[in-house]
């Protein structure tokens, strides 16, 4: 309780600030409407109207909640108006990108740990690759893959996700695979263990705690990658596409509900990895 209470208090404060901000943000429209109609506006009228506009500059929280209820609960899951449907599209590429990024990250980490040449050649470029803003590449990946005849958008979005996701995995795995001390490596040598045995029985298990920490960062990054992949490229399905379409049709409620849905998805994904982490670590005997 001691840990949840402050969080709830801060959340309540954010909600309150949000409600207060709604009034000045939307007042312009209300005042203009009233002037045109030649009406006198009382302050309560003004507040009530700012909370209930069709196209507010800043929608009130309850409007976003209503829109979420409409598009999540009251719409059939298979419908193109359902946020669950769009969330599913986004989730698919996120998971593909996450898988691809994790495999690439682990593969590169293994080669970096075992080969000095790979370490010296690859590591600086891996760091530089992350300073390139992925969004600069996103539109091009999609156009190029379309020219190459790759159907659909799952593959390009997954590649963008993987690009963002592989780096944290790579860095942590290099650290993790190198974490066994000289004593432990020597012990394996006295067992006359082969390189493969040392890898499977010592280095890999030792790297698992590092791996899971980076997976939590990685899956959040993968979701960001997918949404970035959907934003600038005229996608029509997925949470990023909802944001894009909401922007093009001047429908802020659509943008806000998609944003909240994306936030919930991110939270759920990170929590799932966290649960897997504690299960795996418990089973492997890393006492917590």
């Amino acid at each position, binding site marked *: 309780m001691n*840990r949840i209470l*402050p*969080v*709830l*208090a*801060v*959340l309540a404060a*954010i909600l309150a600030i949000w409600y207060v901000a709604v009034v000045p943000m939307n007042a312009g429209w209300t005042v203009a409407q009233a002037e045109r109609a030649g009406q006198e506006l009382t302050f309560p009228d003004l507040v009530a109207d700012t909370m209930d506009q069709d196209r507010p*500059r800043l929608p009130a929280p309850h409007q976003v909640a209503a829109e979420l209820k409409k598009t999540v609960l009251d719409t059939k899951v298979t419908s193109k108006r359902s946020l669950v449907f769009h969330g599913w599209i986004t989730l698919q590429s996120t998971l593909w990108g996450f898988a691809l990024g994790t495999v690439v990250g682990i593969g590169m980490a293994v080669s970096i740990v075992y080969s*000095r*040449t790979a*370490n*010296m*050649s*690859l*590591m*600086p*470029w891996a760091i*530089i690759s*992350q*300073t*390139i*803003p*992925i*969004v*600069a*590449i996103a*539109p*091009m990946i999609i*156009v*190029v893959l379309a*020219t*190459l005849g790759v159907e659909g958008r799952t593959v390009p979005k997954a590649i963008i996700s993987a690009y963002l996701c592989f780096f944290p995995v790579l860095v942590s795995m290099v650290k993790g695979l190198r974490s066994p001390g000289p004593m432990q490596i020597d012990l394996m040598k006295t067992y006359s263990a082969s390189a493969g045995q040392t890898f499977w029985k010592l280095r890999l298990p030792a790297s698992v705690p590092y791996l899971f920490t980076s997976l939590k*960062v990685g899956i*959040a990054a993968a*979701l*960001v990658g997918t*949404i*970035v992949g959907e*934003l*600038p490229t005229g996608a029509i399905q997925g*949470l*990023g596409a909802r*944001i*894009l379409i*909401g*922007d093009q049709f001047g429908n*802020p409620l659509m*943008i*806000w509900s*998609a*944003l909240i849905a*994306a*936030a919930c998805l*991110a*939270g759920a994904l*990170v929590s799932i990895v966290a649960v897997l982490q504690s299960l795996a670590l418990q089973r492997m005997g890393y006492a917590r």
Partner: protein
Amino acid sequence: MTLVFPAFVLWMAAWWLNTRIAGSSLASSYAGRVAVPVVFGLTVLAIWELVVRGLDVSQVILPAPTVIAETLADETGTLWIDFRQTALKGAISGYVIGCLAAFSVALAIDRSPYLRRGLLPIGNFVAALPIVGIAPILVNWFGFDWQSKAAVVVVMVFFPILVNTVQGLADTAAMQRDLMRTYSASYWQTLLKLRLPAAMPFVFNGLKIATTLALIGAIVAEYFGSPTRGMGFRISTSVGTLELAMVWSEIAVTALAGTLFYGAVTLVERWVTFWHPSQR
């Protein structure tokens, strides 16, 4: 096909060279540490060139590095205008405002343990969210010019720096704080002489993460509306007209800008946190 074979040979030769450098006494010297990645990068460029020319890859799919370099040289003026609009006006001003705001909020939060326990989990959560999604909203609020880009950057860099600073300010040992108390140091003295310096490695961690986020934010925001200049604007219009050499030149500029920006922050970090074990 004739050029693909040399590409393969070149790859083997370069790898052999790098293995030799990595295995020799040069490996621990500064020259060796720079030479190996440079050889690797140049080899990738050369192979790219050979494969594109050898397999006759269409310019619409992947332009050769020489073609990109030509575009880079021809379009310097345009690229500079775009760079000024996106990186200098949008990203840097947003970065500075966001960092200052996050830093001040972190100092304020730090005075109340209750607030810290409430905000830290939320900040951690928000730092993992796809915040880029708010770009269209902020472009709607602040207009098409660089102000909206800076606003997106402010929001994107705010939480990583906030979380890192708050964590850093908590990173002093009880012994050290007690020592300050025996000196009867005031809150501000403890803050300035002990806790802020101790927090700097964390703060710079956040600042470094934020450099990349700043460029991403400024570019994404341009996809939702911008004046007819800017790197994001140029990339999206050039992709539309399939001028991929132009897109790649912009990417080269963003990569260079991103690396320099990151490098600059790292240099400042080295200067500020010279005492930290990771810098020695």
